[in-house]
């Protein structure tokens, strides 16, 4: 549903169907809605069977990279004599993204159940839910849900009376965007500074505390109980376009749009209909100009590209962007693209951990130049410099934050060059709003 708006008939509410129902947050309310049946079913199965079902369903990581979840789980070799860990990445810090926040606010038990199933499937006795520090309400909800589940014997040394051990800990982050990067998250979880690690070794080999670890996004894990209850074939069938993208996807829509909120549609839904119909289109008297479809770190789409997009992993790539986290930022003609890009660059410069040279220096330098252009002091050489800095920042660092900063800048210059040029040449083409950034 398009929370906080009433559900649109073209949506497919699966994870969002209990949004707005305070009762669903409680254990009783969740059980009344069919909760924890999937976990019961899972605990009666062999772990490998669960992995196979998830593989079969075609579920892919919802955090941004889109790695097949079942395949990721199968990297965790059972019986290697090491403790396994499951981490639920709830450090949702991508600008424009707030879908996981809503999942945790309204259906915390759905996530607990998903985590428990995932943990059982990969042979992990311990699960950490790493929640962004600024998420005070979701933290409270998750904490309460986990406590309720322990009290009810769903979690603990004897999970649901099966004699299997499943522990879930809620961990509060301390306010760093970079801790959403999986290896930085693990560093942070271990009590160190949240710096991304060099890969390899990958988390499945050496993750939290040097042990095999799987990291999944909130939305990914929350989808697992549904798949287990209704079957892989049912989930797989939910695809309007490419069979490689299956199921439903949550989108958090914000910016210059009539009905911002969290929406859930099936993979392959036309982006044009989504924006204009489901989300209500542009505000009165405005025209949509651009969309950042997957959180701040994906390339900006022009409206022509956006309207030609089918909403799935491949569809966004085909139209010059990425599905990313599903944080749709809509920009209309009242905004200066330069101001938007300057704000994004400033964000990345602020959040860079500062390990790698290109990122530490590049994000800050980019910000200085874009802000200079925004303020009317730019030169044409600055545009070339920006593109070259962007190229040097791409694909050369430990994690992709550096690339993420370069992406909106480079795509913005490519697609909205005239706006940069008119600011450089001293023409103000936009309304007062452009100065607010």
């Amino acid at each position: 549903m398009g929370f906080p708006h009433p559900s649109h008939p073209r949506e497919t509410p699966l994870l969002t169907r209990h949004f707005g129902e305070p009762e669903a947050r409680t254990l009783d309310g969740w059980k009344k809605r069919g909760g924890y049946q999937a976990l019961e079913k899972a605990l009666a199965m062999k772990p490998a069977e669960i992995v196979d079902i998830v593989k079969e369903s075609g579920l892919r990581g919802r955090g941004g990279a889109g790695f097949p979840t079942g395949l990721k789980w199968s990297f965790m070799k059972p019986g290697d004599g090491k403790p396994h860990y499951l981490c639920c990445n709830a450090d949702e810090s991508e600008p424009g993204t707030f879908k996981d926040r809503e999942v945790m606010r309204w259906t915390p038990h759905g996530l607990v159940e998903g985590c428990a199933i995932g943990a059982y499937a990969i042979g992990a006795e311990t699960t950490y839910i790493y929640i962004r520090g600024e998420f005070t309400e979701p933290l409270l909800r998750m904490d309460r849900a986990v406590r309720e589940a322990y009290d009810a014997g769903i979690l603990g040394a004897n999970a649901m009376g099966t004699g299997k051990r499943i522990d879930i800990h809620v961990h509060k982050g301390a306010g760093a965007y970079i801790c959403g990067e999986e290896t930085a998250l693990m560093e942070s979880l271990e009590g160190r500074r949240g710096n991304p690690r060099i890969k390899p070794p990958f988390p499945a080999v050496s993750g939290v505390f040097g042990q095999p670890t799987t990291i999944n996004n909130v939305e990914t894990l929350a989808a697992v109980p549904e798949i287990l209850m209704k079957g892989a074939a049912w989930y797989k069938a939910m695809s309007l376009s490419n069979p490689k993208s299956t199921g439903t996807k949550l989108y958090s829509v914000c910016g210059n749009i009539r009905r911002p909120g969290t929406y859930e549609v099936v993979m392959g839904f036309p982006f044009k209909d989504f924006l204009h119909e489901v989300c209500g289109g542009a505000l009165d008297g405005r025209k949509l100009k651009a969309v950042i479809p997957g959180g701040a770190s994906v390339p900006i789409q022009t409206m022509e590209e956006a309207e030609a997009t089918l909403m799935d992993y491949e569809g966004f790539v085909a139209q010059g962007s990425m599905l990313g986290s599903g944080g749709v930022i809509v920009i209309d003609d009242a905004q200066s693209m330069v101001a938007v890009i300057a704000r994004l660059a400033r964000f990345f410069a602020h959040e860079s951990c500062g390990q790698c040279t290109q990122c530490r220096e590049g994000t800050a330098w980019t910000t200085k130049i874009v802000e200079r252009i925004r303020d009317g002091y730019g030169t044409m050489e600055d545009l070339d410099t920006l593109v070259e800095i962007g190229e040097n920042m791409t694909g050369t660092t430990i994690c992709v934050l550096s690339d993420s900063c370069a992406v909106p800048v480079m795509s913005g210059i490519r697609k909205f060059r005239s706006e940069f040029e008119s600011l450089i040449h001293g023409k103000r083409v936009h309304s007062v709003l452009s100065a607010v950034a």
Partner: protein
Amino acid sequence: MAEKKMVSLTIEGRPVTVPDGTSILEAAKVAGILIPHYCYHPGLPVAGVCRMCLVEVEKAPKLAASCATSVAEGQVVHVHSERALEARKGVLEFLLINHPLDCPICDQSGECELQDYTYQEGRADSRYRDPKRFNPVEDFGGDVLYVPNRCILCTRCVRFMDDVAHETVLNVSERGDRALIGKFEGKDLTHPWSGNVVDLCPVGALLSKDFLNKARAWELDRVASICPSCSQGCNITIETRDSQVARLKPRPNEDVNKFFMCDYGRLNYRWMNRTDRAELPLVRTEGVLRSIDWDVAIHAAASLLHDARTFVLASPMLSNEALHLLSRIMQRNGGAGAFRVATGEEAPLAGVEDLALRRDRAANVNGAQMFGFQRSERPLESMRDGDVLVIADDDLTGIGADELARASQVIVIGTTLPDAASGASVLLPIANFSEEEGTFTNLRGRVQRFMQARPAPGLARPSWLVLGDLLGALGEQDSFYLPSDVFARIASSYPAFSGLSYESLGMRGLPVLDSETAGAAR
């Protein structure tokens, strides 16, 4: 030990075979190619953060950080391909945008890796037009000063303190472009080995207060040597300016000190420059010490020694060569010898096995013992009344003239004439450790060479030459033209040294044979 799997690859068209698990950067060194790098250091854990060592690996989509990428069979690596050069040029530009171009007043200038690689493959100009980042200079305690503006955040210093010294003092504070090296609350770089962070720093961000503004790197002359400050025998480089020792730097030796030296040894060099030296041979005539030709002085000393029982008070700072020659005088005259050692607290470097600032604060304690000198707190106690006393570079601290009075004659062979020995009959001035060549035997029995770093003052001569001449004047047949001749004599006389020569020792040294294998040929 099981044979390690070997991997063959091609780097810049040159085939190399290295053990599995080696990094591309290390493999390239084997192939004779230096891949530019900052954060990587062979003595520290890999960080992979400077991104300077990017190279192109065929069939890999992205450039690889060669310090953090292991070699693979059949890999083809291009270090100087256009793509790799472009990427490294980009890194250098990023490193320089906030780096003050204050090379003319920077101590690191001339030995700065940022300078070197920028000249090698960086841009000639900068496109940066904004103000540079500024942070004030900070005193890190100990001998270390931090200049954050020059810092490139390679984190070598942080990793040295954490992973080698095992004392968490430094950290990376703040993040993004605000990041800088910080100290933990209430901590200072007072660890006895913390001075190494200055050597590890690839730029001029960490400076030695002792060396601050003292000399430009290109004015220094460098000579391979051994640290004389304790019995560990760390390999060092003596760096002199106008023949004055300006600083000591560690010299890598995998078997002794890896890449490090302690602060005590590093800063204990001023005595090498002291100017109140014995510069002329002196002989007492008519009750007064008068300067005289070397030949006359040597013969004067020989005539005193000729038939007399001799007691030698030696210094454990003397070379094996000098100690050997002294022991021969002892043997010839039926005397004895003793030495004393200054001691202090042992200070180990936790992350390196068998590396410490040792209790014995002298270079050649082991050598002195091997050549038959008795270690004693009161070395003169074993002297018999009426012995001829040879004081071989002991400074007589704490020993009074009355104690020397038991000797019939006193001959001083030393770098100075101590007050207590002002009644000596002969003074033969010798070069100090930094002014001559020789070898030391460290506490693990490793024999290591040191070279001459500066000229001896006045007419002072190397100790081995003076003692060799003295032996000759006493009728011994050997003649020594070079310290290596003396060492060859040692090798032929002592089973423990058999087979060793200056050539085989090289600049990294070799252990002496233990008593069991000493008999067998090396």
